[in-house]
C-alpha cells in the first residue's frame, strides 16, 4: 500500500499548542492570585485562603474517588481525622518522644493511605448506596474512637496541633506551605486525570463493562486511587490540625465531610479545575455574609440538589466553552478501511476461538444447549436467530459474564471460562455492546484511548509524577487512537465530548475503541442497530477489511442483508442450538432457517 495515501490528518483541536495553554489557563490564573494574595489581602483572608488550600489537598485526592471513579464516598472526613490526630499526637509526643512535624506529616500520609484502602475496600463488593452508608459509618466510628481513646488523643479535651518550624510558623509562611502542598496535589491529580489511569477511572464510572472489556482491572486501580486519596486526606488532616492549632473531635463533623463531597460535585465530575473552584467557593462563600455561616450546610445541600437536578456537569461544564460550539449537522461517517493495515499491523494470528458443547441454563430454561462454534482468524462469522435463541448469551459466555454449566471456550489452549473478565483483553479479544458503552463527559479521542489502556507501560506512580514513560504512553496511545478514529471515519470529532454525538457515531467509536487492542478476535453485538442503510453499507466494508487484516470477527446481527453480504460463515441459532451452519448462500436457501428466522 502506498504510504502517502494513508496520511492521517492531524486532529484539528490537537492537544499541543494553544489548546493545552487554554486548559492550563485557569490553573495559572488561580496560582497567580494565590501566590500574590498577601499583597492585597489582610490577615483574616490569609486564614480563609489557608483553609481553602487545606480543604483542596483533601478534595483533590477525593476528586479521583468521587469525580473520576464515581464512588460515592461521603464520609471522607474520617481520613482527615486520622491524619490530624496522627500528626498531632506524633508531633506532640503523646505516645513516644516528639518527632519533627514534617516527619509526623509524612507518617500520617502513610497511615492515611492504609486507612484509605480500608474505607474504600467495601466499594469493590457493595452497591452504591451501601458503600455510601459504610463511609458514613466510618466517619462516625473514627470520631467515637478518638473520643474514647483519651490516653492518646486527649478525648473530648483534644490535643494541640503541630507547629511547623520557621519559616512556616508565621501565618503567611504556613499559608505558602499549604499552597505548595495544594499545588503539588493539583499537579499530581491533573497528571493522573490526563493519563490512561484517569481515563480508566471514568470508564469504570460510566461504562464498567466496557472498562473490563478493555482489560482494565477495577480492584487494582481503585486500590491505588484509595491509597493516594487516603494519603492526601491525611496530609490535609495534619495541616488542618496545625491551622486549627488545637483539635477536638467536634471539629470533624459530617457537615465538613459533606462539604468536600459537595464541592467536588458542584465542580463537575471528571474535572480538576471545577472541583478546585468548587472548594474555594464553598470555603469563601460563608465569609461574605456572616448570617450565612449558620446556614452554610443548608445552602450547600440546596446547591447539591440544584446541581444534580439542573446542571449535572457542574462548574466544569459552565467553563467548557469549546463544547458549546454547534457541531456540523449534516456530517457523515466516512470510514477509511485502507488505514486498518497500518493500525492492525501484520496480524499473524493463526489461532481459532473454539466453543465446544457449551451449555447454560437460567432457572431450568436452557439458554444455550450444547453449542459448538469455531471462529477462524481472518473471517467474519455471522450469528443469527430469533429473539431468545441464545446469540447475546453466547457472546456473554465468551466475554465471561456467564459461566456455562457445561462445555468450554478455548483460545490458544487457554480456557476462557476460567479467566477474570478483564483478562480477555490480554488475549486480544475485543468487543462492542448492544447499547454503546461510552464515557459521555470525555472526548471522543479519550474514549477511544480507553481501548488501549493495557498497552501502556508506565506505572501509576510514573503518571502521578509525569515521568518520561507517562509521556511516551500518552503519545503512543494518542497516535494509535487518532489512526483508529480516522479508520472509522470520525477523526474530525476527536476533541468533541462523546455525549454530543449521534447514536450511529457512538457505534463507530466503540469499534475504534475495540480496534485499539489490535484484536485477534472482535465480537460485534448488533453493530448495525439504529444505523441508516448507507451507514450499514459502510460498516460492512469496514468489518470486511478488519477481517482481511487477520482479525476473526463474530457478528451478532438482526440485519439479515448485512449478514448475507459480508459473512464468510453463518451460524443460525434456535432455542440455544445450532439450527444450521454454512456459507451465506447455503443459509439463504435453507428452508427451515428462513422459517425459523422469519418465524414459521
Amino acid at each position, binding site marked *: 500500500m502506498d504510504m502517502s495515501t494513508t496520511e492521517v490528518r492531524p486532529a484539528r483541536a490537537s492537544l499541543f499548542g494553544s489548546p493545552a495553554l487554554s486548559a492550563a489557563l485557569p490553573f495559572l490564573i488561580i496560582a497567580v492570585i494565590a501566590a500574590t494574595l498577601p499583597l492585597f489581602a489582610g490577615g483574616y483572608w490569609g486564614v480563609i485562603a489557608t483553609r481553602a488550600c487545606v480543604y483542596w489537598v483533601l478534595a483533590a485526592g477525593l476528586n479521583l474517588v468521587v469525580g473520576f471513579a464515581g464512588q460515592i464516598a461521603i464520609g471522607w472526613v474520617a481520613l482527615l481525622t486520622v491524619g490530624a490526630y496522627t500528626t498531632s499526637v506524633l508531633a506532640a509526643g503523646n505516645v513516644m518522644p516528639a518527632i519533627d512535624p514534617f516527619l509526623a506529616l509524612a507518617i500520617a500520609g502513610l497511615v492515611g493511605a492504609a486507612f484509605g484502602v480500608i474505607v474504600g475496600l467495601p466499594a469493590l463488593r457493595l452497591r452504591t448506596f451501601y458503600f455510601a452508608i459504610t463511609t458514613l459509618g466510618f466517619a462516625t466510628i473514627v470520631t467515637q474512637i478518638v473520643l474514647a481513646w483519651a490516653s492518646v488523643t486527649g478525648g473530648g479535651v483534644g490535643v494541640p496541633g503541630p507547629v511547623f518550624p520557621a519559616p512556616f510558623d508565621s501565618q503567611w509562611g504556613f499559608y505558602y506551605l499549604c499552597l505548595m502542598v495544594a499545588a503539588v496535589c493539583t499537579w499530581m491529580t491533573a497528571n493522573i486525570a490526563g493519563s490512561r489511569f484517569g481515563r480508566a477511572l471514568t470508564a469504570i464510572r460510566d461504562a464498567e463493562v466496557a472498562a473490563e472489556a478493555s482489560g482494565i482491572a477495577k480492584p487494582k486501580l481503585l486500590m491505588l486511587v484509595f491509597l493516594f486519596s487516603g494519603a492526601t486526606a491525611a496530609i490535609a488532616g495534619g495541616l488542618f490540625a496545625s491551622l486549627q492549632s488545637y483539635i477536638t473531635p467536634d471539629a470533624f463533623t459530617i457537615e465538613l465531610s459533606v462539604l468536600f463531597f459537595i464541592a467536588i460535585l458542584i465542580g463537575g465530575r471528571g474535572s480538576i479545575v471545577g472541583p478546585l473552584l468548587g472548594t474555594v467557593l464553598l470555603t469563601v462563600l460563608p465569609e461574605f455574609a456572616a448570617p450565612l455561616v449558620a446556614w452554610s450546610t443548608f445552602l450547600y445541600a440546596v446547591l447539591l440538589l440544584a446541581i444534580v437536578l439542573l446542571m449535572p456537569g457542574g462548574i466544569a461544564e459552565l467553563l467548557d466553552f469549546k463544547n458549546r460550539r454547534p457541531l456540523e449537522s449534516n456530517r457523515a461517517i466516512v470510514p477509511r478501511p485502507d488505514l486498518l493495515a497500518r493500525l492492525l499491523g501484520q496480524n499473524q494470528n493463526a489461532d481459532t476461538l473454539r466453543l465446544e458443547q457449551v451449555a447454560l441454563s437460567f432457572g431450568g430454561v436452557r439458554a444455550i444447549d450444547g453449542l459448538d462454534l469455531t471462529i477462524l482468524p481472518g473471517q467474519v462469522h455471522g450469528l443469527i436467530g430469533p429473539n431468545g435463541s441464545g446469540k447475546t448469551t453466547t457472546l456473554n459466555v465468551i466475554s465471561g459474564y456467564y459461566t456455562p454449566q457445561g462445555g468450554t471456550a478455548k483460545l490458544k489452549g487457554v480456557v476462557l471460562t476460567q479467566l477474570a473478565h478483564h483478562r480477555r483483553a490480554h488475549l486480544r479479544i475485543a468487543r462492542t455492546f448492544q447499547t454503546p458503552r461510552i464515557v459521555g463527559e470525555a472526548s471522543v479521542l479519550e474514549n477511544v484511548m480507553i481501548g488501549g489502556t493495557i498497552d501502556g507501560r508506565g506505572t501509576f506512580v510514573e503518571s502521578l509524577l509525569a515521568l518520561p514513560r507517562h509521556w511516551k504512553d500518552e503519545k503512543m496511545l494518542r497516535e494509535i487512537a487518532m489512526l483508529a478514529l480516522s479508520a472509522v471515519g470520525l477523526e474530525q470529532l476527536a476533541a468533541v465530548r462523546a455525549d454530543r454525538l449521534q447514536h450511529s457515531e457512538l457505534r463507530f467509536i466503540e469499534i475504534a475503541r475495540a480496534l485499539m487492542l489490535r484484536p485477534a478476535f472482535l465480537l460485534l453485538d448488533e453493530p448495525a442497530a439504529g444505523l441508516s442503510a448507507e451507514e450499514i453499507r459502510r460498516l460492512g466494508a469496514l468489518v470486511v477489511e478488519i477481517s482481511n487484516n487477520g482479525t476473526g470477527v463474530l457478528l451478532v446481527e*438482526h440485519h439479515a442483508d448485512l449478514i448475507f453480504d459480508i459473512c464468510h460463515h453463518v451460524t443460525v441459532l434456535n432455542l440455544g442450538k445450532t439450527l444450521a451452519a454454512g456459507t451465506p448462500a447455503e443459509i439463504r436457501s435453507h428452508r427451515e432457517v*428462513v*422459517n425459523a428466522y*422469519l418465524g414459521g
Partner: protein
Amino acid sequence: MPTLGAEPLLSVTGLSTGYGKVGVLRGVDLTIAAGEVVALLGPNGAGKTTLLRAISGLLPWTGGVQFSGRDLAGAGPRETVKAGLAHVIEGHRVFTQQSVTDNLLLAAYDVPRGERAARVEEALGYFPEIAAKRHERAVALSGGQQQMLAVAQGLVQRPRLLMLDEPSAGLSPVLVDRVFVVVSKLRETGTAVLLVEQLIEKALALADRVYALARGSIVLEAATGEADLPHRLERAYFAPTPAAG
C-alpha cells in the same frame, strides 16, 4: 372481511419513535378497522414490539395516532387503557406472587368496583383451565397458563382493540391454538386485534390483513387472501434497501 371504507378504529400516521438517541421506527402508517384482526409480522429487531409500546403510550412518539376518534398524542398507558386499548406485553409477565383472580382484578383497577367481579368472570370464561386455578398464585401456573392469564388481563378491560405481543412464544402448539381460538371469538364480538406473531402461517390463517415491518418501516401491507404472500413477505424482509410501504 371488514371494509376499510368507514372511519378506522385505529389510525397511525407517520409515527416515529425510539429509545433515547436510537431511532427504531421511522414514519410508520397503519390502520385497523373495528372488529378487524391484523397481523404485524417482521424479522427480529424490526420494531414490532416498539410499535405496540408506542401506540399504548409506554414510549413517547412523534407523528399521529387516532383511536376511535380520539387523538392519543401525549396519552400514557393509563389513558389508552381507559380509551379501550389493551396491550398484552411480550413474555407473559403476570404478577407471580398474586392469585389469578387478583391479577385479573388489577387489570380492572379503573373499572367501577361493583362491576369488577363480573368482568373477571367474563374473562375467565374464555379460559377454563385458569378459571380452575383462580385461587392459586400465578407462580404456580405453567408458561402457557400464564400467557392465558395475560391475555385474560387484557380481556378484563373489554377493549375495543386488543394488542397481543407474541402470544405464542414458549407455548406448545395445542395451547397456541387455544389462544388463537379466543382471538377468533373476539372478532365475532366486534373486538379488533393487532397480533404480533412469529408463527407466520398461523397468523396468516387467523388475520384479515397483514402488515410487515422491516428496518423500522412498513414494507408490506396486504389482505391475507392475496396470492403468493409468504414469498412476498420473504422478499420484503431481505430487501437490501427499505422498500416503499
